């Protein structure tokens, strides 16, 4: 698996700062998204992970610095499940079809759109749920539905906000394997997460963020006690297991537990 960024740069964040109202959330961020990127952005709550994604997405403008996209970049976004209005009256296929909003003005799907929606739902293993209301899905199925919507845009850059939060260990494992498959198909992927050990096990490239970029590199380079102390403001012990770093959660004097990935 590649993904550490050796292909052509398709999106370039140069010395960018961003925030909301008068609060500056991110300062002096440099980040080059390559064609074969597969990066996990980790950091504590309020560190600016989602703001960085929104900067890449283009819905937040940099206060200083710049964000430059290559003309052929097609970005798709998978939102955090906690931010979704689950009472909205919409079925799975209606939700996925939203990706085609600007391609067709009429409300109903064309035959080719119906086929595309059916194909992408089939690929993600949720074809039989097409006519269900979005609330009637499990957490993993809801993630797959939003990934299906994103894939219908035929993106070459996929941004995901906390795709592994709120799902069980098996679902998280399946999700990361699915993302790995999509990356192998040529889609660059950038995601945010709190799940250090899961990312260390599955992703080739990590970026630690806390108001700015603290460190980036391979999991072995980034997941060290020093980097984590700068990122999370607390000393975390890191063990090596089969060449893979594992963070021991001994935070704030709580009983020590090893979080298996």
């Amino acid at each position, binding site marked *: 698996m590649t993904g550490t960024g050796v292909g052509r740069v398709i999106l370039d964040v140069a010395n960018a700062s961003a925030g909301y109202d008068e609060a500056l959330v991110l300062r002096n961020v440099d980040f080059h998204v390559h064609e074969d990127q597969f990066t996990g952005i980790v950091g504590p709550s309020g560190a600016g992970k989602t703001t960085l994604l929104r900067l890449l997405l283009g819905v937040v403008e940099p206060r200083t610095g710049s964000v430059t996209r290559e003309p052929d970049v097609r970005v798709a976004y998978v*939102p955090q499940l906690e931010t979704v209005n689950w009472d909205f*009256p919409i*079925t799975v296929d209606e939700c996925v079809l*939203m990706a085609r909003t600007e391609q067709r003005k009429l409300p109903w799907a064309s035959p080719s759109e119906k086929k595309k929606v059916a194909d992408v739902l089939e690929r993600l293993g949720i074809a039989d749920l097409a006519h269900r209301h979005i609330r009637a899905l499990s957490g993993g199925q809801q993630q797959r539905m939003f990934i299906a919507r994103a894939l219908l845009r035929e993106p070459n850059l996929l941004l995901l906000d906390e795709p592994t939060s709120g799902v069980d260990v098996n679902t998280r494992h399946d999700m990361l394997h699915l993302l790995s498959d999509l990356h192998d198909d040529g889609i660059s992927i950038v995601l945010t997460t709190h799940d250090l050990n899961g990312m260390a096990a599955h992703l080739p490239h990590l970026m630690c963020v806390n108001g700015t970029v603290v460190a980036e590199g391979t999991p072995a380079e980034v997941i060290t006690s020093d980097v984590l102390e700068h990122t999370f403001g607390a000393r975390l012990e890191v063990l090596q297991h089969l060449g893979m770093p594992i963070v021991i959660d001994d935070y704030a004097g709580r009983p020590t537990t090893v979080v298996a990935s």
Partner: protein
Amino acid sequence: MNVLETIFAPLAYDFFARGLIVATISGALLGLIGVYITLRGMSYIGHGLSHAVFGGFAAAQLFAAQFYVIGAGLWGIASALAINVVSRKQRIGADAAIGVITTGSFALGVALLTKFGSRGPSFDSALFGSILGISTFQIWGLLAVAVLTLLMVVFRYRALMFTTFDPDVADASGVNVSRTDAMLMIVLSLTILATLTVIGVTLVAAMLVIPAVVARMLTNSFSKMLVTSAAIGAGCGFVGMYLSYYAGVPSGTMIVLTGSVVFALALSLRSIRSAVNRRSHTADAQAQSVQGKKMPVTF
């Protein structure tokens, strides 16, 4: 008096026939737009805008009595766009923006009408609706707004749904969210203006909310909710007009009361259906437990 007489007798009066047409179309129109308003959590905007339009109605007729509808419309659109802009400033917030802009406008309307009187509809008619004196111009105006709204709902269906569900992702997917929001606000203002005559300033907001809320209880599909809400709105307008005629009370009052009864019925039916489903699931679980089978876990 038999049922047919009850239905056809009032139609002998031209004012009632006109009122019935306007009330039915108004109900459908408000039901349709109400879907977007309620799903966006903007119910208070409907309430506020109707009050803002009242201020415009009072001010416009002072300067050009015969064109007060146009003046009130422009005032309403300006208020809607001002709310849209101000509510994006997070420090102020949508509810405070609506509170300041629309109640200020309403207060101005009351002051102007009290001081100078009305050259158009009476103060009470504007507040609670009246079927008297509906002109052909008003019917054509309402039909024009209805056609405009239908065109918007059909040809901007996807953009409106996407921006209502998830404006950030819609924006990132190339949908012009600001333009879509502004378009919805303009159509909302025109709808309120066109329906104000029959339903009244103080009651328009209720007809924006009730049909949509009832429709939401009946369906989980967005497209079906639009059709259901418009049908419920039209039905309330139609039935409410007859009740208004026979009870001798303002049309807006009876239309909203009809909607309230429909809402209460839908809520009761939903509660009964939920209770029956719960009992059925419990019985199934007990049966499975007796047979020693494991229940599938669903969320």
